[in-house]
């Protein structure tokens, strides 16, 4: 019927592998389970088990001592973090505030940068390559450089402000400004991610609405407001949620710049629970905070997954 030679079609069962013993044939048949098996085992050992252990530990009271065993206290740790620990409540609010600060800066700047970089101009490729560098630079090293730049009397940050005629700041050295100074480092580091995600979104925009708008005599600004922004929204939302998931977990730069200080002004959930676990060895109590942070991040992730499903781009 069909003059062409039949392609490798689903109708024809694949021949068993030639040079293989019983073991080889068994491995061939179960390849789809054997291939991922080592990865699954590792994930189970270093991820699933620790998470389950953390949840179990959050119901105990234990000072990480080998002399005394963990004592089961039920939901007491959770009662404490929710009802009786103002420091934890402050840390939660601070984490959310830090995330909001960083994300606002990154989104506004990132979208603006993407619009600029969407045009053709000489040297665009080189500048875009430079934009990648903050995201891969070692956070510890970057934090260290900002420690020196933020120095209230010798730092270059205040010198640059004075050039612009502004009074000096205390940056990370004052509890009034420390959180903003740390958020600024996050903005410096991660604005390029938003830019690159939005840029990818811009590249996939259709041309027709713009041509129609041009014929109708719409100005560039109106075209941006009524065409670009709505079409770009899915890309922006995905970018923001991606950043939110990581910003909620920010640890390195805060720990290096301030370690939560001055006067707890930058103590996010991550920093507070790190100190509870590894300075005071309140393992059970710290575990309950870890579960709370986990819930917060998973909440943001579920929103992301939902949004990604609905936004096809």
């Amino acid at each position: 019927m069909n003059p062409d030679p039949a392609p490798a079609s689903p109708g024809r069962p694949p021949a068993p592998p030639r040079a293989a013993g019983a073991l080889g044939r068994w491995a061939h048949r179960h390849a789809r389970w054997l291939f991922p098996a080592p990865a699954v085992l590792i994930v189970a050992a270093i991820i699933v088990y620790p998470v389950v252990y953390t949840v179990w530990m959050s119901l105990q009271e234990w000072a990480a001592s080998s002399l005394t065993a963990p004592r089961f206290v039920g939901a007491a740790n959770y009662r404490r973090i929710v009802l009786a620990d103002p420091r934890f409540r402050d840390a939660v609010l601070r984490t959310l505030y830090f995330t909001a600060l960083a994300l606002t800066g990154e989104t506004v700047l990132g979208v603006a940068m993407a619009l600029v970089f969407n045009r053709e101009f000489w040297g665009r490729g080189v500048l875009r390559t430079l934009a990648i560098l903050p995201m891969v630079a070692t956070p510890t090293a970057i934090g260290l450089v900002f420690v020196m730049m933020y120095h209230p009397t010798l730092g270059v940050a205040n010198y640059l402000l004075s050039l612009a005629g502004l009074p000096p700041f205390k940056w990370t050295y004052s509890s009034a400004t420390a959180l903003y100074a740390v958020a600024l480092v996050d903005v410096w580091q991660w604005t390029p991610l938003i830019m690159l995600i939005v840029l990818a979104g811009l590249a996939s925009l259709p041309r027709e609405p713009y041509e129609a708008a041009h014929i109708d005599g719409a100005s560039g600004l109106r075209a941006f407001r009524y065409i670009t922004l709505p079409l770009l929204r899915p890309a922006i939302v995905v970018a923001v949620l991606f950043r939110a998931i990581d910003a909620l977990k920010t640890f390195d730069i805060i720990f290096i710049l301030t370690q939560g200080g001055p006067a707890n002004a930058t103590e996010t959930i991550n920093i507070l629970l790190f100190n509870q676990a590894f300075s005071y060895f309140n393992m059970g109590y710290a575990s309950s905070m870890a579960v709370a942070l986990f819930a917060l991040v998973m909440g943001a992730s579920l929103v992301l997954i939902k949004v990604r499903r609905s936004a096809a781009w």
Partner: protein
Amino acid sequence: MVAGRVRRRLQGAVYYGLALAFMLPTVFVFYWMITLSLKPQVEATAYPPSFFRFSVTTAGYRTVFTKYPFLLYTWNSLVVAVGCTALGLAVGLPAAYSIARWRQRGLAVTILVARIIPGISYLIPWYIFFRQLRMVDTYGALILTHLIVGLPIIIWVMIGFFEDVPRDLEDAALIDGCSHLGIFWRVALPLVRPGVMATAILSFVFSWNNFLFSVILAGRETRTLPIAVFNMISYEEINWGTLAAAATMITLPVLLLALLVQRHIVTGLTFGAVKQ
């Protein structure tokens, strides 16, 4: 015509200027780090600071190696990052192939969740286990834990590469009696070699940069570079030239590596949500 060209030129210049303005802070921080590392102490902490005219010295770099066991720290970072990447590739490549080939969505999502969970929620159990196993301050503990940053990146970026391998090619090999292992090893893997290179570098970079896991699980013998640099701040190292030299030496290799794989970085960071 001419007016239009002038206008386009002018517009181009404006965009170029805006782009430069946006990138100025990025470039400046790196520029400041490198110039500080080359300044003698008097000039590093001079106020007002000098941006272009300063005397150049390698004293900062020499101090890093003479006052601190920086070679050991560099070696530790290398062992851990290479170990994590090698192990990650060994278990991640077959897993990525399997996910791409047999559409194992559930497995892919599980790996993604591993990346989403805050690292600190693993740290308490790890600390307890590794202490019981007397594995704190060993390469083994660091390599295993760094897999949490390396493995998801390897798997998720490689899924994309394996999906691009023509299915016909694999089916033809299957009909010729090639086993799945043979197809993976002799057909698919050679085709995705550029991807393997890129993910290896990405995994190396993120292991190299890791601070949180190493700060608890590394000890005197296995301390990696980020921890060493952090300790320099807490030991009141007051010479800014030395601090900047240390910062430069940690991050410069990573920046150079990143330039090699820049096309894949956003894919890696967004777990395939954005392909470039």
